[in-house]
């Protein structure tokens, strides 16, 4: 286990590495740039065009920032939810928000709504899903982790069916490819407007969760145990889930649904800093961001056409998760 003295330097190294990775990723793409060009453009912003300047400031920088924030949001959200639901197999899909948001976005594409309205619709249905999860839990008269997970599964299935229905009904020439590409996740349409749309909810929710990081340890106990320690389990868990819903809805709104990151990154982070959520949450944020930057680099360079992110996260995530499971069971046996 890490001592608290070695955690801060390690965290700084992680953050700096992720930021350097971001800068390095500015060089990568169809129009390749050298590192010195990138650094020059970053320090000399001008409106007087120039292709390199355009590529950096209007295409790659917003895109990489979005990848950082979206990946960070998913990593943080996964780590938080795994704690809150006392279960290391939980990922952000579990509370139904991803499917709800995916339905909102799909509906917006079908109706041909403006980008801003589309984001609004995504956000609205994502948060509605969480409210419905609580409504179903309320109808059962209980509000523990298991009830919430089961309600989340019900809503995920329901919204997934609605998404399929829309895909089935959509015009196969124009609308359907848009829906499919969006659902698989992409930062291809990144712009500063979307960065802002993502930044505000991510900064607010992340700040709240970061301050509550020790309380997540307490929420990871079973409800009775936590209550006996004087923790107000129900209101605290509700607040945490609302923060997670904002993170996921914001991420889906700007980049579609991206699986695996929220499941795998917390496990990787635990390998690095242990299970204490005071360390795990910030680590999962930065590792998620770094991972997503790499995924996006692959997405825009591997082939002539962009590969949807969901495909790459699954292709990387599945073997990575297998490795983690084997590693942890070996460690457990020792």
């Amino acid at each position, binding site marked *: 286990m890490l001592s608290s003295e070695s955690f801060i330097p390690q965290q700084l190294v992680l953050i700096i590495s992720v930021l350097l990775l971001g800068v390095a990723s500015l060089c990568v793409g169809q129009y390749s740039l050298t590192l010195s060009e990138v650094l020059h453009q970053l320090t000399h912003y001008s409106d007087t065009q120039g292709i390199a300047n355009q590529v950096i400031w209007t295409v790659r920088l917003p895109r990489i920032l979005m990848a950082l924030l979206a990946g960070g949001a998913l990593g943080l959200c996964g780590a938080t939810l795994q*704690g809150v639901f006392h*279960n*290391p197999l939980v990922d952000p899909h579990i509370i139904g928000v991803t499917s709800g948001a995916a339905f909102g976005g799909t509906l917006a594409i079908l109706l041909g709504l403006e980008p801003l309205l589309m984001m609004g619709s995504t956000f609205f249905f994502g948060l509605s899903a969480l409210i419905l999860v609580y409504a179903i839990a309320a109808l059962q008269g209980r509000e523990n982790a298991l009830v919430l997970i089961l309600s989340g599964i019900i809503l995920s299935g329901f919204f997934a069916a609605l998404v399929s229905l829309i895909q089935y009904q959509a015009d196969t020439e124009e609308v359907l490819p848009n829906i499919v590409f969006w659902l698989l996740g992409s930062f291809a349409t990144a712009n500063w407007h979307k960065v802002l749309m993502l930044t505000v909810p991510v900064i607010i929710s992340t700040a709240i969760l970061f301050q509550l990081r020790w309380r997540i340890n307490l929420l*990871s*106990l079973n409800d009775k145990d936590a209550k*006996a*320690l004087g923790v107000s389990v129900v209101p605290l868990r509700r607040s945490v889930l609302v923060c997670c819903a904002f993170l996921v809805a914001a991420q889906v709104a700007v980049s579609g649904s991206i699986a695996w990151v929220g499941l795998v990154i917390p496990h990787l982070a635990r390998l690095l800093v242990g*299970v204490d959520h005071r360390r795990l949450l910030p680590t999962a944020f930065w590792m998620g961001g770094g991972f997503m930057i790499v995924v996006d680099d692959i997405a825009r360079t591997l082939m002539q056409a962009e590969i949807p992110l969901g495909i790459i996260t699954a292709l990387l995530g599945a073997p990575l998760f297998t490795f983690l499971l084997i590693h942890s069971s070996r460690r457990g046996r020792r």
Partner: protein
Amino acid sequence: MKTGELRVQQLLYGHKVPLFEPLSFHCQQGEVWAVLGRNGLGKSTLLDTLTGTLKPLAGNIENEGGIGIVAQHSHLPFPYSVSDVVLMGRAQHVKLFSQPGSADKQKVIEALEQLNIAQLVSTPFTSLSGGQQQLVMIARALVTASQILLLDEPCSALDLANQEVVLQLISDLAHRQHRGIIFTTHDPVHALQVATHTLLLLPGGKWLAGATDTIVTEDNLYQAYGLTLRKIRMDNYATPFVAPLFTIEK
């Protein structure tokens, strides 16, 4: 009312219907109460009611100084270190948006030292033996700074040597630190050894409470367990032993 006291008056408790006739007893500073009774009668439910995780159906529970509990089973979903686990006991002393500070961490170290398990501080809780886990959970209850401690079958998972360690600890906490202790047990000997008072839960909603030597008698134990038990006195030992007279057919 002094801190470290717990007064229960006319308490009706249970999940929907009351399990016992109105229950009253008064645990004072420095007293140890044992709760005896058959499986499923409602010993753990009583502790849940006293901590407030289960609402009483009627009656009063008064206490000053807070109630901490050591549950019978402690399952943790993640392999937290011992210090992380004990630190969780500080939940009520750390503000909502704050993190535990050095004073909280100091309390953790003190509690571990008091129980002679300071060397386990960074060991994962899940890799400890049952006895060590029990001690860690007691340390967690100590750092809550509660003056009343409830322990749900603290000896049930322990070998005989560890049972002595925990019973000695219960006695010390009451007599040296003037806390009020209530523990449930299946062993009348434990009650006789450390409990100043006993609450004996009987089938049919009846109960008996009072000084241990007046409650833990052969007649009362027969009422409680439907089984003949003999109290045996041995030379050199202050407390009598209790032996059940099983008749096993072969």
